[in-house]
Structure formats: structure tokens, C-alpha cells
């Protein structure tokens, strides 16, 4: 597997991570932060998958699978928090 492909992929993912992190910290409202958190979960899944390819260890696919399954729970939780009248500040 050409290493430059992996490096570029990692670079793109890290860039996306940094951008969504800025949104997470800056995000004026809570939903903005949650959206950023969702994207970070996705980035982490992709990162782990690419890393699995990079070090040629298929075992990490399970980690990505679990993350894909449960990553979105944060959004559901925060949504319930807001709908129930939680205080966004």
C-alpha cells in the first residue's frame, strides 16, 4: 500500500478534525457543538480504519464498528437534553 496515500488520508482527516474541533469550541449554540462532535466520531472511525490498513491489522475494524454503532448516541442524548428544556448554557 503506497505510504503517501495513507499519509495524505491521515492529513485530510487531521485537518477535518482540527476544523470540527474549532467549531466544537466556538460553536455558538449547543447543536453546533453536537454536530461537530458527530463529525469527530465519524473522523475517528475513518482514522481507525485507515490505520488498520496502514499497519495491516484487521482487528481494529471491530473498534471502528463499535464506534460507528454507538457514536451517534451523544447526539441523541443532547437532543433529548434540549427538548426536555435543559439549559443550554
Amino acid at each position: 500500500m503506497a505510504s503517501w496515500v495513507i499519509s495524505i488520508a491521515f492529513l485530510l482527516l487531521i485537518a477535518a478534525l482540527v476544523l470540527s474541533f474549532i467549531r466544537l469550541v466556538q460553536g455558538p449554540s449547543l447543536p453546533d457543538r453536537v454536530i461537530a462532535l458527530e463529525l469527530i466520531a465519524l473522523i475517528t472511525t475513518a482514522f481507525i480504519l485507515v490505520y488498520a490498513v496502514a499497519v495491516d491489522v484487521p482487528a481494529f475494524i471491530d473498534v471502528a464498528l463499535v464506534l460507528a454503532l454507538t457514536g451517534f448516541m451523544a447526539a441523541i442524548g443532547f437532543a433529548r437534553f434540549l427538548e426536555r428544556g435543559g439549559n443550554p448554557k
Partner: protein
Amino acid sequence: MLIAVLSGFILAAASPWLARSVGDRAGWLLAALPAALFVYFLGFLPTVNESGAQVIHYPWIPDLDVNFSFLVDGLSLLFALLISGIGTFIIIYAGGYLHGHPHLPRFYAIMFAFMASMLGLVLSNNLITLFVFWELTSVTSYLLMGFNHEDKNARWCALQGLLVTVAGGLALMAGLIMIGVAAGSFELHEILADDDVLREHPWYVGMLILVLIGSFAKSAQVPLHFWLPNAMVAPTPVSAFLHSATMVKAGVYLLARFNPGLGGTDAWLYTLGIVGALTMFTGSFMALRSTGIKAVLAYTTVMALGTLVMLIGIGTEGAIIAAMAFLLAHALYKASLFMLAGALDHETGTKDILKMGGLRQLMPITFLASCVAALSLAGLPPLFGFIAKELMFEATVGAPGLAFFTTVLAVVSAMMVAGMAAVFAIRPFTGKLKETPKKPHEAPPSMLAGPVVLATLGLLFGLMGFIPASGIVQSAVGAVYGSPIEVELYLWHGINLPLMLSILAIAGGVALFLRWEQVLDFYRERLGFIDRFGAERGYEKWYDGVVWLAEWQTRVLQSGYLRTYLTITVLTTVVLTGWTFFGHTNSAVTLGSMDMHFYEVAIAGVVVVGAIAASVTSSRIGAAATLGMVGFGVAMIYVLFSAPDLGITQIMIETLTVILLVLVLFRLPGFLNLSKPADRVRDAAVAFSLGTLMTVLILAVNGVTVTDPISLQLAEWSYTEAQGRNIVNVILVDFRALDTLGELFVIGLAAVGVYAMIRLRAEDKQR
């Protein structure tokens, strides 16, 4: 032998049931055990007299060098006979004295437990077992002192007695361990075999002081004597048994036992001599001014203990003989006097001597027995007490170095005690019959058996001195002195200085008795100030000080704010680990060359920035979201270090944290009052210090490889033994299943705890 000693405990367990089923005659029936023990120990007498000490060995905890080994020699046999003999009469006496008391069965149980622990103490050969029994006597004495626990004063005095004796016990334990280590063995017969090993040892002074503190606390020597008169709150059988004949003598026994090993030096002579003499004087001095019959007897006991300690301190042949004779004499007459006092109190309903009079016709036998016992207390011929007093004077006169000091104090104390003996024997019984709360009549036979027998023994031993001499006193003196000595006990020593001193003492006594009222008034006017500076005030100040310290410490540490607890915990960790790490280990912290890929650095950077953002953000729910991100970052780091199991766990924990936070934060307000800048700086500093410490530690640990990591073996075993390739799970579930079981219970407990708290909050919201 082991069964003999422990039989007390067994009967203690059975006695409540026994007492209830047998009813009134329980006293006589239960007394069978101590009587049997008395006969059993008598059996040892012939062998001990010929062949000296005998060691009987039962292993208990062999590899800790702690075992039930028993040393039966003259000294321990003398005590064992006293305990079991007087114990028999005390149990019978208690049957009468506490007749119909609802808690009588429980009383019997504790009494037997005490008797067994006392027997264990005097007979044990192993220092640790001796200490165990020593503490047991303190505990049982506490239970007995606080027997009528409704009375607040009884509880206070019982606690006082416990604290003093147990504090002494602590010092004693340290001393015993030092002795055991210094002598290389915890077996007494080995320690005392070669005399000088302890004396020459560098720790000698330390050992001596610690053992002395323990013994002085237990035997109520001067600074620590105040708890004994207060112990009179206990029912009279307890006072008669514990606080006169046996328990308070444990300290004296210990000093006598260690005399061959620790004694013989100037430090031993002067400390014991002076403290003993002072206690003797204080005891008799305070006896003179008290009017309660039990208080008088308590102070005379303090005087007797002082005399014994002084005599052992002097350490000459004569002194040791005097000590053993005095010990036997005191046990006899003091136990009977206490029982008689109990009879008086039981019949007349009052303890005050001034309120009693003319009981001669109504209580003839009590009068007769108390006369005989009081004569022995005063030390008049032909009683055994006289022989003991004569020997005492001989010893003090011949005392090296302290002769004058001890003799003067001895004579003055003898004078005062003779006076009090006369007051005790004559005043309540003569004169016209005074009005007393209860209609007095002769005490029941069970309460008279003990005093009559013990008093006549005192008379018998006095007339025929050779019985006690050849029987027990000679081998006891041999055990204490270290080498066998010839002992004769006879009344007439010829005209000599001790006889003169005795006559002087008795004359003084009679004078004091005749003008007793004036003496009392003199005390009240001039010497009232003593009460303000007595040792007890010291104890109370110490007690209040401890209580104040506890309150202050709770106020400071338990402030109720989570952040205070956190700061305290963090700072303690940082200070302790930091000091040990930087102070002692000199391992240089090397930032070894780590081949790090750019993405690892990037992820670490994002995680760090995220953590800072989470701590700085002003919105609580925002912090929760940022923490979510930090969690995912850490999960990535786990994957980078090829730990899939940890990665999954981290992700799951991350998700659950968010879920729980969402459920909890629902009710928490936003950050109401952001802390002041000063607090934030302080908190930042605390956090920063912990952070740096942990980083440095981890780097240092990385550098040092002490042994090859255990993971190598575990990996190898993982498949061979546990047939599993996933080492993490194999460890969790198979190798260290017990730890995981522990963790499961913790998880379960936490869940139930949360459920309970929420349930409580919901209920009191409804109310």
C-alpha cells in the same frame, strides 16, 4: 493446661444459659470451675517446688513465633492460685450480692472471661500471648466497671479506666516487641535464661521505660493512679476480685517477672523505688481523707501496689521475700475486706462510714471477720499481715541508696493505714445504732463464706508461717530473684529496728483513729486545693484536648465542598509522591528518542487543547461535549498503541459518560458563580503540579526496566493454560478472576448507592 486456661472462656459462653436454668443456686454451681482450677494448680505445687520452672508448649501461629506456651513456676503459680482461689469465693459472693439482678447471667459471663484472661496472663510464656491476655483483662475490666451502664458516671469511670490501661498497654506492646527482638526470642524462659542480654542491650533504657509505663498504668502507680478509686463504680464483687486481688497486680506481676532480666540496674532501683514509695504514701494519704468504705479500700490498695513496686525496685533478697509475702497477705485481707464492705453496703444501703454505727449486734459474723481482716491490714500480730510488714521494714531499712526515704514513707503510710483499718473495723459496728436507708440484718451465708475463709487463712498463715513459706512463697521468690533462696516466715524476729518501727506505726494509727473527725476537718479546710491539681485533672484536660483536636480536624478536612476534598487529595499525592521521587530516586528523566508519526503528534495536540478548552469553557454542557471529543481522541491513541480492547472500552465509556451527563446535567444549573480569578489561579496551579508530576513519573518509569514485563509470561501462558488468544480478556476473566469479582461487587454497590440516593431524593420531594 491449655484447656484449663481457656475453660473460663468456654464457661463464659455457657454461663448465661446455665445461670438462667439453675436460678438461685447458680453462684454455688458456677463456682465449681474456679475451685476445680484451684485444685488443678495445687497439683503443680510439688513438681514446681523441686524441679523449678516447667514449660508447656502448644503451637498457635508458629511462623510468627506466637504460640500458647505456658511457664509454670513459683511466681505464676502463686498468682494462679490466688486468682482461682479468690475467684471461687467471688463467684459465690456475686450470687448473693447481685441476687435477682436482671443481668446476672451476663455478669457471670464477663467474670469468667476475665478470670480466664487473667490466668492466661500470669501463666503465658510467650510475650505476644501475654500481651493478648493483658489487653483482654483491660477490656473485660471495662465491661465489668461499666456493668450498670445506665449510670452516666459509671460509663465515664469505665471509659477512663479503659483509656488509661489501654494506653499503657500500647507502650507495653512496643516494649515487649523490643525485648523479643533484642533477646532474639519471644519465649520468656529463653529471654530470662541468660541474665545480662537485656541489661547490656543498647535499647535497655527504651525497653525499661515502655514496660514501666505499661505496668504503672495497669497497677495504678502515682501519676496514673486516679482511675482505680473511680473503678469503685463497679459492683463490689468486681472491686473485690479485679481491683484489689488480681487485675491491678498484673503490672506488679510483670515487673516481678522481668526482675531477673531487666532488674538490678540503678535505673530500675531508683525508678521503681521512688515511684513505688510515692504511690504508697499518696494511697494512704488519700485513704485517710475519704469516708466511703469502698474508696478507703481502693486507696489502701493503691498504697499496697506502691509498696510492692517499691519492694521489687529495691530488689534485695529481703525485699523480694517481703514483696511476695506482702502480695499474698494483701490478696487475702483486701479481698475479704472488700466483700465485707459489700455486705455492709448491701445490708445498710449506704457506703458512707459516718452514717453507719452499732451494727455489732445485728451483723456479728461480719463484725468478727472485718476485725480479723482489718488487723491483718494494720499489720498487727498474730496476723500474716504483721509478718509481711516486718519484712517490709527490714527491706526498706536495708535498701541500698533509698533506705531513709523509703523507711520514712513506709512508716508514715503504715501509720495512716493502721488508722484507717481501725476506722473500718470499729466505727460502723460500735456506738449506737444509726438510722440507715435499709433495715440491716446479717448478710446471707453466700456473702459471708468468702471473707470468713480468707480472714481465717490470714490468721492461720500468721500463726504457722511455715505453711505459706515452704508452699508457695519460697519458689515464687526464687522465680523473681532469679536463683533459689531459703525462706522462713515466722512472727517473732526478736527486738530490732523493724519491730520498733511497727510499734511506732501502730501507735500513730491509734492516735489518728481517735481524732479522725478533726483530721477530716483539717483536710477539708487546708488541703482542699489538692483536688484542683490532682492527676485526674490532667487526664480530663488531655481528654478534652483530644476531643477538640478531632473537631478541628473534621472542620478543616470535611468542609463539605467537593473542590476542597479534591484539592486536599491532589496536593497530598503530589507532595508525597513528589518528595519521595525527587528526594530519593536519582533516575534522570530522559526524553528518549521516540519515533513519532505526525498524526500521533496531531492527535495528542488536539486532545491537550480539547482538555484545556473543556476546563476553560463557561457552559457546563459545552464542557460535556468537549470532553466527548477528548474521549474519542484518547480512543484513537489506544488504537495507535494497538490496544483494540481498550479502544472499544474507551469508546463505550465515552458514550455512557455523555448519556449519564445528559441525564444528570438536566437538573444542574449552568455555572452559576464562576470562581474568582484568585481561585482559578490556585486551582490551575494544583492541576498543573499534578500534571507535571504524573508526566515526569511516567517518563521516569519508561526509562527504568527493573524486571522484564510480566506481559511476556502472561502472553505465553495465555494460550497454553487458558486457551485464549485475547490476553486482556484472559487476564480479566481467568488469571485474575478474583479481582474482577471484587470489581463487580464495587460496580454493583455503586449502582445500588445511586439508586438509593435518587430514591431518597424522590421521596422527600413528595413529602
